[in-house]
C-alpha cells in the first residue's frame, strides 16, 4: 500500500462508476451535459475527501454499532456546505442538479469509502483514496456526459452559468433525444463498461503472453 497507488486506483483500476458500479442514480441523472457532470463530480469529490479525512480521524472514537449514522452526520455537514456554495455561485447548475446535491448524503460511493476504507485506514491514505475515487467519479461522469451531450443535443461544453451556449456540432433537430433519456443513459454506460472490460482483458492477455 502506498500513497500513490491509493491515489490512482480510483481512476481506472477501481473506478467507482465503471468498475465498482456505485452511485448509478446520480450517474444517470447528472450525465446529460459535460458541465453538469463535472459540477456533480467536483461536488461529490469535495464531500468524499472531507468525509474520508474526518471519518478516518474519528475512526477510533466512533462506536461501531452506530457508525453509519455518525458517517451520515459527517457527510451531511459537507453536503450542506457544497449545497450552499453552489446555490450562491453557480445557481443555474444548482438548479439543474436539483435534488441530486442533497442526495450526495446517501451517495453509495461516499458511504462505501467511509465504511470500507476510511474507517480502517490512516488519514493520509484516506485522503488519497478520497481524491482518487472522487476524480475517478468525475472522470467517468465527464466521459459519459460528453457522449450524451454530443449525441443528445448536438452541442458540446454548454455552460449555462457562464452564458456559454456551447460548441454546436450539428443541428439540434437531428440530435437523438433518446440518448439524454434514461434508456440512452443505461445503454451508453453499458457499452462503455463493456468497452473498458474488453480493453483490460486484452491488456491482461498481452501481459501474460
Amino acid at each position: 500500500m502506498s500513497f500513490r497507488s491509493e491515489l490512482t486506483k480510483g481512476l481506472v483500476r477501481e473506478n467507482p462508476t465503471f468498475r465498482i458500479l456505485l452511485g448509478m442514480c446520480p450517474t444517470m441523472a447528472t450525465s446529460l451535459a459535460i458541465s453538469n457532470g463535472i459540477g456533480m463530480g467536483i461536488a461529490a469529490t469535495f464531500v468524499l475527501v472531507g468525509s474520508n479525512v474526518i471519518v478516518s480521524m474519528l475512526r477510533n472514537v466512533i462506536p461501531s454499532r452506530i457508525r453509519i449514522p455518525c458517517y451520515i452526520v459527517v457527510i451531511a455537514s459537507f453536503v450542506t456546505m457544497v449545497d450552499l456554495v453552489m446555490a450562491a455561485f453557480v445557481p443555474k447548475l444548482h438548479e439543474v442538479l436539483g435534488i441530486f446535491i442533497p442526495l450526495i448524503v446517501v451517495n453509495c460511493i461516499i458511504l462505501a469509502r467511509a465504511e470500507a476504507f476510511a474507517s480502517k485506514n490512516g488519514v493520509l491514505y484516506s485522503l488519497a483514496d478520497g481524491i482518487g475515487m472522487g476524480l475517478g467519479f468525475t472522470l467517468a461522469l465527464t466521459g459519459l456526459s460528453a457522449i450524451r451531450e454530443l449525441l443528445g443535443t448536438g452541442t458540446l461544453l454548454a455552460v449555462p452559468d457562464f452564458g456559454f451556449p456551447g460548441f454546436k456540432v450539428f443541428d439540434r433537430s437531428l440530435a437523438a433525444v433518446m440518448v439524454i433519456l434514461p434508456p440512452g443513459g443505461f445503454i451508453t454506460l453499458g457499452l462503455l463498461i463493456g468497452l473498458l472490460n474488453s480493453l483490460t482483458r486484452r491488456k491482461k492477455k498481452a501481459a501474460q503472453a
Partner: protein
Amino acid sequence: MNGTGLIVSSSPHQRAAVSTPVIMSDVILALMPAALAGVWFFGLRALAMMVVCVATAVGTEAGLEKLMRKPLTIGDYSAAVAGFLLALVLPPDLPLWMGAIGAAFAMAIAKFIFGGLGQNIFNPALIGRAVLLASWPVFMTRWRWPIFQAPWIPDFDAVSSATPLALWKLSGIKTPYLNLFVGNVAGSIGETSALAILIGAAYLLWRGHISWRIPVSFVGTVAVLAALFGQDPLFHVLAGGLLLGAFFMATDYVTSPVTPKGQLVFGIGCGVLTVFIRLYGGYPEGVCYAILIMNAATALIDRLTVPRKFGEVKKVA
C-alpha cells in the same frame, strides 16, 4: 438455432426438412406484397429505405461477427428479414441515415449483444422502430398521403398529414374502409395495405411457418375490445400496424411463446395492450409497444403454460 446440437423438447423428435434459411426466405417472399404496395403508394423513396435498412442490418451483423471472430450467420437471412421488417414500419419520408441507425441498433444492441439469433428477448425490428421513435419523434411522426385525393378530410394536405388512427383520435375523422383495405392512406411503408399483408400472411400460414393462434387471438382481442369500448372494430383492425404486427412481428419464433396455450395468452395480451394504448395512451398507435411488452413476458408465459405430457394425470392436491 442451427448447429447448436441442442434439442430442447421431449421425445419423440420428428425432424422436418425446414431450416432457418428456408423459413426466412419464405418470410421475405411473404413480405413482398406489402413491400410492393409500399413502393406503389409511396414511390421509390420507400424502395430506397428498404435497401438501406436491409443492407445496414446485414452489414452490421457481418461486421460484428467478423470483429468478434464468431461464425458468419448472415446466410440464414434473419438479419435481412429484420432489416426488411424495420423498413416496413418506418414512415416513407424518414431520412435514410436514420433508417440505417435503426437497423444497426436493431442488429447490434437488440440481437447481437444478447447472443445472436435465438437468444434475443425482444423483436429486433420493433426495437429499431422504438429507438427511432424515442430518438427522433418529429421525423418519426411525419406522414405523407399517397395520392392527392382524400375528400373525407377537410383542409387536405397531401405533403404532410396524419395517419388514420391519429385522425380518428385527434379529430374524429374516419377513413373509409376501402382506402384502409387497399392501403391508400398515410402510414408506415408496409403497414397501410391490409390486402397485401393478408396475401403474404396467407402464404406463411399455407406453408405452415406460422400458426393461427397469435395473429387470430391478437386481432380478435383488438376487435372485441374495440367493440366493447364503443369503437368501430373493423376500423381498428384495418387501421395502423395491427395486421403487419400480428402476422409478421408477434409471430417471431424467437420472441414469442412456443406452447399453444401460451401463444393464445401472448396474442390476447398484445391485443389488450394495443387497444389500451390506442384509446388511452399518448400515442395514436400501440402495436409496436404492445408486442415489445409481451416479448418481455414470453419466458414467463412459456413456463406457466407447459402442456400436459401424454398420459400425465393431474395431481390431486
